[in-house]
């Protein structure tokens, strides 16, 4: 695949190296001539010196035949504009943007960017994972379908312990996929499965129903 990356900072550099290792054709567009030169010296002729928000640069980069366009500069606005240019002027099928301000994730999606990655959110998720008190964790985003895979831990003392799944007021767009019991045995939940203390329940849900799902599972 031909992958264009805008932003040759540390993130862009390591991303390029990893994608080259996987056998893809990669080009990094970098504003700073020195950085661009360093990348070329270290990784072979894979960097183009220029502004990724300008049509002329994207033209020279051969954006018209790119399969994926990724923006990883430090500025959200630059990442957005470069992706929109790639999408609307060069018809790149898939655009992915790095987002600094986590609120901008929904803005970018609304404005037609195919996927976003927020470092702030990723770190936040990791922190939540480490905190045992947080009963709902995100395991996976299925961005294009607007769904996510989450894990809910049943704390001892939950009002739902001893109840059957069918008794719980689960949101319509959430599906329980797996229950991992305290002793580590995974089972596929049925309507008559009984909630036990310290169960880990893996579910697929829409982000909007997340709170409702958590409340239904642990009781409040």
């Amino acid at each position, binding site marked *: 695949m*031909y992958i264009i990356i805008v932003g040759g900072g540390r993130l862009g550099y390591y991303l390029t190296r990893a994608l080259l290792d996987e056998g893809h*054709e990669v*080009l990094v567009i970098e504003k700073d001539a020195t950085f661009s030169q360093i990348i*070329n010296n270290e990784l*072979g*002729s*894979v960097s*183009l010196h220029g502004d990724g928000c300008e049509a002329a640069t994207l*033209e*020279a*980069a*051969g954006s*018209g*035949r790119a399969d994926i366009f990724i923006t990883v500069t430090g500025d959200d606005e630059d990442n957005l504009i470069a992706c929109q240019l790639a999408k609307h002027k060069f018809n790149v099928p898939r655009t992915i943007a790095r987002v600094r301000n986590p609120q901008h994730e929904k803005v970018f999606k609304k404005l037609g960017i195919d996927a976003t990655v927020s470092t702030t959110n990723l770190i936040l998720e990791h922190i939540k994972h480490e905190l045992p008190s947080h009963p709902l964790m995100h395991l996976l985003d299925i961005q294009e379908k607007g769904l996510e895979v989450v894990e809910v831990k049943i704390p001892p003392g939950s009002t739902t312990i001893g109840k059957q799944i069918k008794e719980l007021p689960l949101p319509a767009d959430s599906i329980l996929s797996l229950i991992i019991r305290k002793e580590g045995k995974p089972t596929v939940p049925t309507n008559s499965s009984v909630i036990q203390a310290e169960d880990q329940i893996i579910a697929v849900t829409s982000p909007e129903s997340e709170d409702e799902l958590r409340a239904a599972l642990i009781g409040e």
Partner: protein
Amino acid sequence: MEFHRILVPVAGTKADEGAIELACSLAKRKNKSKIFAVHVIPVERSLPLDAEIKPEIGRAEDILSQAENIAQERGCAVETDILQAREVGPAIIDEATEREIDLILMGVTYKKHYGQFCLGDILPYVLKNAPCRVILDHQIDI
């Protein structure tokens, strides 16, 4: 001074002839010496690296057969190759490394850019990164 494997990048300028001639005189002293004449076609990013750019390839073939003729007149055999690359300089260096070249010989034409003497991008890159000796053949009045 003897060289065994000489790389002569040819660009299709008037300096090519002199460079091949010089390579022949440096190589001749030893029968086993090899001369490689290469032409690098820079491929713009809008095309894949292995795209077949017909007019460019035709031109490259002409340039290389010209080089072959000049060498033959001087009793030297030349191995020729067409390379496609994003940038010319690194392509020359890669080729020199791969073929274990001990001399890169480049013909230089006198260039002026906005009134200033200018070596371009390729020569300084080769000088900076060459894994072997480099001779720049600067020919006056061509």
